[in-house]
Every structure is written in structure tokens, then in C-alpha cells.
């Protein structure tokens, strides 16, 4: 999955008499009837990076939120330097030296980097912006976290925002830093830089917890690996003694996982999407076609024009005339005539925003794109919609298995299954799937892959992904996009294709003979 090579410093060994700075002793946490964490014991050491590996919903974030003082454990306790702590707020945890970088950044967008770092730091009543900036700049330099202290947070990239979060913790002199899926929002280059910063912090004696479900990252980064499964510590693993990734994956999900999927190429049918010389919206003369029965992957580092292409194909932005043809019809004609089924389905990257309404239940969310199928005159047949939704919930095994569950209550994987179920229910002829497995665990990823392969029977799929493995596993052709141009379209039957994608993604064009 990750294409980057890391040059990590050698792992340090724990001295026999070294005491852990944090001891988690028999912690149990329940939410209603669900046991999120069950009798967990775990030690953290200064200068070491512990990876907490587990599927979505395994209880990783819950466990660390208790350490960070956001939740109180129902049973058990946490010791820091041998003293039992009882945090009732994140403030107390911060004071005890524990800081957490959440998946959703806790940053005030309109304020500057320095203001965010120093927010709530009791000091003088009066503040001096230039002095604040200097303080933050000094700290940033010490840990190699490159960010302009006077920039407004809203103008920063995701990677920079993350650095601000880290600076906040460092400024508070946190000794234990917890990172909740930090690489989910980063580009590969930013990931490398983050890892380098993490090693630097560990070198300076910080204890680091890295929550992830990405095996490669965990293996290349961590000094220790703790596998969490269904709220229980499944095992502590030394990354140097791991036989194979598949072995680690097995222990994480508790069953054999197919990280690879069998794909039988189908014979391609008629062209369902034809993009001809599309320019503007960050694109530059893009040509691309998708036929029924095939999956075409659009691969590239995020921000190279994928958004413009997806939005114009899906009808969110108006492309220039005669540049997009869907099902043989010009763009405008297609969207004028398109009905709710046998048309275009869009599986957006933003599951809890563009794809679903967070406070609406499953039936309403299914109706979002299928309502035209449930109208009788001016009325909506909610009973039939509810029955159909129930069918989808069971067919796709969308947990918690109730049609009354609200979108935000679903885990990422289940929400994605719900979106996919809805979109496939429309029996589309073209599917645009944008990062369909981002942030999903292995079993959910496999499920999504399987559905996408199945749907080729009736549709063509445009798969927009940053995950090379996903592109290689699923697609018949891979188009590599760089700065708005398709630099190459590769056939995945060719075994050497994987090696050719990397340079293309980095903008290195192949010579004509290749």
C-alpha cells in the first residue's frame, strides 16, 4: 500500500530495570451494552514508539481517549510514573503530560499557528504576537516541524495542520504523545516527514503511541506493536520477529484475510464514460474512457486534478461543451434526462458529508438518491422504502442492522457499505468511486472490493484512488494523473506496471519508446 521507503533509526531495546512511564492496569470501558475495552493491560516507555494496531471499532481510540482524559474508565486505572491518576478532563491529562492528536484536528481555523499553539496556556494576560511567533518557531525548529507560525490555520495543508497539533502538545511539554490514525489525511511525502518527526521526538525521550490499521506503516515505524481486537489486547509483538504481513493481519482481524483479491477480467461492453480533451478546473486536456465491464483506476497524489474530473463527471461542476459523454450522450443531455436508475452512481470520498446526512436514519439516507423510485404521484412510499432499506441492510450486513440507525452512529466501514448498497440499488451503468476504502479496515475493504468487482456485470467503474494496491488489485487499466494531465494509461495485465506508476505519479514522463 505504502510506496515509500523509510530509513528508520535502529530500534532501541528496553533496559531490564527500566520502568514504564504509563501503566494501563485492567481498564474496562462500556458504552451501553457494548464493551469497547475489556480488562486491558499495557505499558508505555519513554523514548519508544508503540503502535496500537487494530481494525475500525476494535477499541483503539476509546482506550487512548481514556488515557487522554476524555473518557473515564468503568474499571481499572492508569498509573503515570507509578502514581495512580484519575483524570476527569483532558486538561488534567495534559497537565500530567499526556497529549493526543485526534483524527479531526482541534484547531481554530481563523487563528494563526502561534495563537493555536499558545491557546489556553496560562501565562500573561497580555500577549504579544511577534513574541508568540518566535516561541513557536523555536519549538518547531527543535523537532524539525516546518510550519510558519504566523500563517492562519485555514491556509495550511493537512500535513501542516497536523504539525500544529503536534506543536501544541510539545509546547505543553507532553511526555506521552498519542496519534490517532495520523496518516489517514497525509500524502505519502507528508507521511515520511511525520515519521521522521516521530523518531526525532522518541529520540528526545518522548513516549509515542501510534494508532493505526495500516500494517506497513506500523511495521516500519514502531518499536513495539500491540494488537487490539474487539476490545481485548490480542498480543504484543516485536516488529523484528514478524514472519509476514499476512500473519500480522490475521492476528488483527482474527481470521484469514485476503489482502489480494481474485479478479476475472470481463469482456468490455459499450463505452459508458468518454472524457475528451477536458480542460479547466485544474485539468489539462484529459482523455479517458470507461467501458461497461471494466474498472479504470485514476491514480495520483491527492490534489492533482482528481477533484475537478470527478466533480464534472458527476454533474457537480459544468465542464466545457463536448468534453464529457456519459452513456453516449453529451453531459448536459445526460443529466437532463437521467433517471434515478440505470444512470450514474457516485460514491464520494466524504462519506459523512456529501454521501449521507449525519442526523438522518438509514431509510432517509437511502432515499437521498433513490427517492424517485418510491414516489406515487406527489407522495413518497415510505413503507416500501423502509422494506427495501431493510433488505439492503441485511444483504450488505450493515451493522448495527437497524434501519433506524443514524448515519453518524455507523462506523466508517458500515457507512461506506450503506452508501455502496444504496448506489448499487440504483443499478447504475457508471460508478464513480472516490477513495472507496480509505480509512476502512481489512474486512470492510475486502467487502467493498468484492462489490465493485461484482458490479462490473452491469456497469463501468471509475475508481479514483491514492492506494496503489487497490488500483492494481481491482482495475483493468490505470490512468496516472499529475498536475491535471494523464501522464500514462497502463494495462494491469502487464506485470511490471507497478514499477512504472511511481515515477508517473511523481511527474516523470515515460519516453515514447517505453
Amino acid at each position, binding site marked *: 500500500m505504502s510506496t515509500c521507503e523509510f530509513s528508520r533509526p535502529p530500534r532501541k531495546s528496553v533496559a531490564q530495570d527500566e520502568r514504564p512511564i504509563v501503566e494501563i492496569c485492567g481498564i474496562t470501558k462500556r458504552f451501553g451494552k457494548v464493551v469497547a475495552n475489556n480488562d486491558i493491560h499495557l505499558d508505555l516507555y519513554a523514548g519508544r514508539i508503540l503502535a496500537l494496531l487494530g481494525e475500525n471499532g476494535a477499541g483503539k481510540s476509546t482506550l487512548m481517549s481514556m488515557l487522554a482524559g*476524555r*473518557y473515564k474508565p468503568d474499571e481499572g486505572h492508569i498509573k503515570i510514573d507509578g502514581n495512580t491518576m484519575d483524570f476527569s*478532563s*483532558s*486538561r488534567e491529562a*495534559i*497537565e500530567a503530560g499526556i497529549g493526543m492528536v*485526534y483524527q479531526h484536528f*482541534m*484547531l*481554530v*481555523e*481563523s*487563528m494563526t499557528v502561534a*495563537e*493555536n499553539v*499558545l*491557546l*489556553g*496556556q*496560562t*501565562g*500573561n*494576560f*497580555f*500577549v*504579544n*504576537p511577534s513574541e508568540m511567533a518566535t516561541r513557536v518557531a523555536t519549538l518547531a525548529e527543535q523537532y524539525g516541524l516546518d510550519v510558519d507560525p504566523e500563517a492562519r490555520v485555514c491556509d495550511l495543508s493537512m500535513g501542516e495542520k497536523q504539525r500544529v497539533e503536534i506543536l*501544541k502538545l510539545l509546547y505543553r511539554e507532553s511526555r506521552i504523545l498519542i496519534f490517532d490514525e495520523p496518516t489517514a489525511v497525509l500524502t505519502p511525502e507528508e507521511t515520511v516527514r511525520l515519521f521522521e518527526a516521530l523518531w526525532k521526538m522518541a529520540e528526545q525521550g518522548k513516549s509515542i503511541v501510534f494508532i493505526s490499521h495500516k500494517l506497513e506503516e506500523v511495521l516500519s515505524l514502531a518499536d513495539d506493536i500491540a494488537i487490539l481486537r474487539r476490545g481485548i489486547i490480542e498480543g504484543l509483538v516485536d516488529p523484528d520477529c514478524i514472519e509476514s504481513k499476512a500473519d500480522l493481519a490475521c492476528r488483527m482481524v482474527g481470521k484469514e484475510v485476503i489482502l489480494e483479491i481474485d479478479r476475472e477480467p470481463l469482456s468490455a461492453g459499450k463505452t459508458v464514460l468518454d472524457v475528451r480533451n477536458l480542460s479547466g478546473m485544474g485539468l489539462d486536456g484529459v482523455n479517458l474512457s470507461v467501458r461497461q465491464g471494466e474498472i479504470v483506476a485514476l491514480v495520483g497524489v491527492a490534489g492533482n486534478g482528481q477533484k475537478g474530473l470527478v466533480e464534472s463527471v458527476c454533474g457537480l461542476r459544468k465542464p466545457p461543451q463536448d468534453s464529457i459523454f456519459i452513456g453516449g450522450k453529451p453531459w448536459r443531455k445526460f443529466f437532463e434526462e437521467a433517471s434515478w436508475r440505470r444512470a450514474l452512481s457516485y460514491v464520494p470520498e466524504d462519506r459523512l458529508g456529501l454521501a449521507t446526512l449525519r442526523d438522518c436514519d438509514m431509510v432517509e439516507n437511502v432515499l437521498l438518491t433513490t427517492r424517485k423510485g418510491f414516489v406515487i404521484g406527489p407522495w413518497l412510499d415510505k413503507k416500501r422504502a423502509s422494506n427495501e432499506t431493510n433488505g439492503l441492510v441485511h444483504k450488505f450486513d450493515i451493522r448495527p442492522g437497524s434501519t433506524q440507525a443514524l448515519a453518524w452512529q455507523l462506523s466508517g466501514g458500515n457507512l461506506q457499505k450503506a452508501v455502496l448498497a444504496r448506489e448499487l440499488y440504483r443499478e447504475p451503468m457508471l460508478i464513480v468511486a472516490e477513495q472507496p476504502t480509505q480509512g476502512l479496515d481489512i474486512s470492510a475493504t475486502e467487502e467493498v472490493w468484492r462489490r465493485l468487482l461484482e458490479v462490473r456485470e452491469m456497469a463501468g467503474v471509475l475508481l479514483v484512488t491514492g492506494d496503489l494496491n487497490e488500483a492494481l488489485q481491482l482495475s483493468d487499466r490505470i490512468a496516472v494523473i499529475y498536475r491535471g494531465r494523464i501522464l500514462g494509461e497502463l494495462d494491469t495485465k502487464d506485470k511490471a506496471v507497478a514499477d512504472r506508476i511511481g515515477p508517473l505519479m511523481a511527474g516523470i514522463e515515460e519516453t515514447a519508446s517505453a
Partner: protein
Amino acid sequence: MQELIIPLLNATVQSGTPILLATLGEMMTEKGGVLNLGVEGILSFSALAAFVTGYTTGSPWLGFFMGGIAGLLLAMVHGVVCISCLGNQVVSGLALTILGLGLTRFLGTPYIGLTTAGFEKAALPFFSSIPFVGDVFFRQDALVYVSYLIPILFWFFFRRTSLGMSVTATGEYPAAAAAAGLKPILLRYFAVGLGGFLIGLGGAYLSLAYTHLWTNGLSGGRGWIAVALVIFAFWRPGRAVLGAYLFGGVMAFQLRLQASGTNVPSSILLALPYALTIVALILSAWKRKRSDMPAALGTNIEPEG
């Protein structure tokens, strides 16, 4: 020409002052993330409280202070409903306007027609001798001089103090403020209370310096103008000064025009400031550069868990 312009501008500052105070009060409230549509009610109620205090004690300064306290108390009602009881901010604010106007009419009846000494215009030594500027800005009453300091303090508070930064963070992203160890609930109460106090000072100005006389309907829609001006001002105190004096100018101008016996119907002249409100809002939406609207404005802080 000078004889015409200077009195008009002088009156502009005077009629702009209550609007300025109310606008800054509402801006303070909104910087903390709470929308208070009760400005009109607070303005009216605090005008009465200030008048009654001034009338009974004979101390205009005490009256001025009590106007602020009355504004603070009434704003706190809104604070409790929205911050602690998680009520809808729009509904609560509208209810507060109705409550404030009703209470004022009810409690103020015995005072109708009475007058109080209040604040008189007094030239500020040295400053008033500056040509033109002195005549416009420094031949005013003491409250106007106080009001010159408030936008500066407001700016300083948000740009140069840690408390101001904390209030901004609460209005932008309460969860982030909480994660930084701040107490967003308390900070919101602070912003609502201080905002109410400032609006109350605006009310006090109306009865103690603008009219010296108690009558019904003293607030006269200035509260609504203040709400609109906050948007026009992009939540920045400098633009609030500009906006408040602009409206003060229109109000002063239409009064003068009415007095001059023009044949334009007075109802049209009276509607002028409100028409300008709409125009100003359209313009500010049109030429939107970068508004400092607090991102969490109007949303309540849901308890965790």
C-alpha cells in the same frame, strides 16, 4: 456650508453612539459563538433602568452603570437558556426582545414624560480646539468620549490578551477550546454577559444623553440595526465604528430634513435607516473579502458523552 455640515456631523456622532455601543455588545456576544437577537429588548430595558436610576438618585453616572448592569442581567437570561439549557438561540433571542420591550412598557409607564438631568455636552479641553475635528468629535457629552475608547479596548482585548484569544476560540470551535484546557461554557457566559453590559450602556445613552426624557419606544429599532451592523462590520470593531456613524448620520440627516419642513413624507424619511440596513447588508455580502464570522456562531455546545 461649514455651519450646516458641522452640526450635522456633530449630531451624527451623537446618534451613532448608542448604535456603536449596541453593535460592539452584540459583536462581543457573537465572538463567543452566541447569537443574541434580544438586542432591541435589552436596549429598551436598560434605557429604562438607567433613566430610573438617574431620576431617583440624581447621579447620571450611576444611571449609566445601572444601564449596563440591566443589560448584563437580561443577556444572562439568554445565556442560561442557550448555554446551559441548550435552547435555540434564535427563538430565545426573539423572546428576549419581546420580553424586554414588554417589561419596559409595563414598568416605564409611571415615568412617561418625566425628565432627568443626565449628561450634557461639554467641550473637551485642548481637543475641542482642533479645527473641524474638535467641533465634530470633542464637543460632545462625557459618554461619547467614553465610547471612543471602547472600540480600541475591544480590538486590544481580542488581539493582545489571552482571554480575548480564548473567547475567539470558543466562538470558532468550542471543542478545540475545550481540548486546549479552556472552559468554553464559562467563556460563553463571559462573552454574553459583557456583550449585554455593552448593549446596556448603549441603552443608557439613549435615555440619559440622547433624550433626557422617558418615553415609550425609545430604542426605535436601533437594536436590529446593531444586529445587522455586526454582519456589515465583518465582526471587526473598526468597521463597526464606520457602520454605526453611517447610520447615525442617516438618522441625524432625516431628523433635520423632517424639521426643515420638506414635503417628502416623514414615514419615508423614518424608514431611511432601515432601507440603508438592507443596502449595507447586500453590499457586505457582495464585496465579501474575508469575514471574521465566528464559525460556531449560533450553535450550542452539546455536552460530551
